């Protein structure tokens, strides 16, 4: 592909949605593959980012700023979720270093 062709084709909304689907698939697979709770949280962040990307792409496509407002709220909720989740992980790993997701049952009671 020549440089002129690269300049002629502009990425469309479909491109962004496909990228978003790929990123979401990577995050979902990672969440099921990995057993370290920290990495599982990072995979959830990947999935949230994939959805954010599709929100922004569609907001631009339809000329509606509501999509970008939704991304703003997703970021706030993600921050709150990470704080609570890392608190849980700290209290789990202080009790038992090297624990994996199955050991979260220990936190009961």
């Amino acid at each position, binding site marked *: 592909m020549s440089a002129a062709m690269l300049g002629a084709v502009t990425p469309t909304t479909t491109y962004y949605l*496909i990228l978003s689907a790929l*990123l979401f698939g*990577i995050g*979902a697979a990672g969440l099921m593959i990995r057993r370290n709770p920290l990495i599982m949280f990072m995979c959830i962040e990947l999935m949230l980012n994939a959805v*954010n990307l599709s929100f922004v792409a569609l907001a*631009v496509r339809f000329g509606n*700023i509501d999509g970008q407002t939704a991304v703003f709220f997703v970021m706030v909720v993600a921050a709150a979720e990470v704080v609570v989740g890392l*608190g849980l992980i700290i209290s789990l790993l202080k009790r038992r270093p090297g624990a994996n997701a199955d050991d979260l049952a220990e936190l009961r009671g």
Partner: protein
Amino acid sequence: MELLVFILASAMVLAGGLGVVLRSNPVHAALSLVLTLFGVAVHFVALEAHFLAAVQIIVYAGAIVVLFLFVIMLLGVDKSEDLSIEPFPIQRPVAIVIGAAVAGLVIAAVVRARDTIAETDTPLAADGDSNIQLLARNLFSDHVFAFEFTSILLIVAVAGTVVLTRKDKRKVEQ
């Protein structure tokens, strides 16, 4: 030019995503996450969502990933885990199939609906307002109650985390 930016940023996003899943060292995984977040921020700039690009860098790369790294260092779990151990032998193939199926189904739906998402350009800032002004007007008029509720959410999250991780002194003394 725009396609070149798209390709480079997409490469960053996908390489970072694969890095998070495949790197065995949690610190490397967190740094791969930073790569993904920067790639998404580049996409936001390309889509003219300038405010969200800045927030993406400040909140995600600046705060959330630093929090991850802080926990990794605090707990001393920054050594590589052995990824060759599989407690359930069927888990990984099934997970990969499910992830590929989710991505494939969504891509099929998007490709099928590409005529509905007709590729016309309707720029958001048509009336000359910048992206930040549009976003602020929308956020503080239509969504002002949701905005106030997020402050309650943040307070509850912070207070809950403090209660969760604090040592209960009364129990220790008994």
